[in-house]
């Protein structure tokens, strides 16, 4: 195969956007947040383990040095509280019974 053909093939197979990726999973959203993040702890945090590790990409750094967190599309995996080194930054529980992530083909 020629070099150009190879490149065209790669391009013909684009990666999906993160929104599309998360859209493939079903989340039954409860009005009450099952995880809350304490913005004050995050403001002084330089390592930001949660930002790269959360598979649902729910920890978003803000321009003023804080963290914006939204619980809605959460896999309930536990990664964030395991990697966060700051006591009290994350309070983590499972959602109300029947709510949250619902897998179908895993």
């Amino acid at each position, binding site marked *: 195969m020629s070099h150009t053909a190879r490149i065209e093939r790669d391009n013909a197979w684009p990666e999906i956007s993160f929104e599309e990726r998360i859209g493939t999973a079903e989340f*039954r959203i409860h009005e009450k947040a099952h995880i809350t993040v304490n913005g004050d702890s995050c403001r002084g945090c330089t390592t930001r383990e949660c930002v790269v590790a959360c598979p649902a990409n729910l920890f978003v750094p803000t321009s003023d040095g804080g963290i914006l967190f939204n619980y809605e599309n959460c*896999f309930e995996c536990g990664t964030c509280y*395991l990697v966060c080194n700051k006591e009290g930054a994350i309070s983590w529980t*499972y959602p109300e019974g029947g709510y949250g992530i619902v*897998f179908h083909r*895993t």
Partner: protein
Amino acid sequence: MTAPAHDFDADIIVVGAGPAGSCAAIAAAREGKSVILVERGPFPGSKNMYGGVVYPRILDELIPSWWETMPVQRWVVKRSTMLLSDTGALNVDFRANAWGAPPYNGATAYRPDFDNWLANHAVAAGARLVCSTTVTGLLRDSHGRIEGVSTDRPDGDLRAPIVIACDGVNSFLAKESGLYPHTDASNFTLGVKETLALPKHVIDERFGVRDNQGVDIEILGGTSGVNGGGFIYTNLDTVALGVVLKLPKLAAQQKRPEQIIAELKRHPAVAPLIEGAEVKEYSAHVIPEAGLEMMPTMVADGMLVAGDAAALCLAAGIWLEGVNFAMASGMYAGQAAAEAITKNDVSSRGLSGYTDRLEKTFVLRDHKKLRKVPHLVLSDRVQHKYPAFVAGVVERVFRVDNPHPKPGVRRIVREERKKAGIGLLDLLRDGWTGMRGFG
């Protein structure tokens, strides 16, 4: 079935209707005990994600001829280990078509199907299954003895003399009861996975199988420099592809999990297998990876811990087995709990039949035999240096460089070892640990 003492709702409460919980419930209910099986998901399996292969031999005891009714995608007849360097790959394949016929060996299955099927067996055995209910803590009597669980349902307390915690890797029940001394992120990996749709005949052709034959591929290397591994499993008309990533290593670099999956998908040895496939479902879950070194105390007065909640998952490179360990430990917990109710002694002494069974069977024997392997497989040398080293050696052994004559293998090994920056002593030591560990 014996009626529980007057102020109890059941003899035994099992928390979590995953493989551990359902087998605990089946075993205890078969012994005539009253069992409540509590699951927070809307149906069993709805919260559960894994790579994709179940090895159900242990079910022979609880569900004879399980293969006739189990919701199977494909029967695994080929197991491969793939060692990936940046551009090369070494594949070690084993094929056994006999595994594609009764009594079988392993099968790919979707967890929502499999867990639901197993929980139905618990119900058929007489257990009461309560879904959409999250257990929020342990109930204790005035002497501090465990006497059930609280839930998020109105009037949701459930009382029983024995609680079996099968609540998975994050087990808040085991932590609440103090059975885990501490939680260390380096004992866990994050698994992320894409379920990729492809027509059945395309999967058959690309993976060299037919009918309901399936393939199990474990991958070392190819995780963008983050310690971990990968896997590819064939379902009927989807392929499960994912990576497992050591948590502290993942958190200490810049690539996000889905980017690491994307790089694995682009690897020249992987891309042709899944080209053109559409992502049907994206999923994530954490794995207890450190085996024996992280296991909690598994028995307390009035309480047993089984499955991932007890870190019984075996994650050792060429093996990623958790469901069979969960089913076995759950079954033994259910049997021991039933015994304790019969003897009327639910203290940790009365429940010690559980650890006796774990010690005598593969559950703890495999973990003991392989205790050094998880750390070896996830070590920096094995992760970052060996794949390139091995692929380099093999590439040069097979490369035809005429008019030059073939170089001696010993020389190739020495040169490639130096190129990869591996000391001879380290290589010998790892080889020795590996041989003893796997032996």
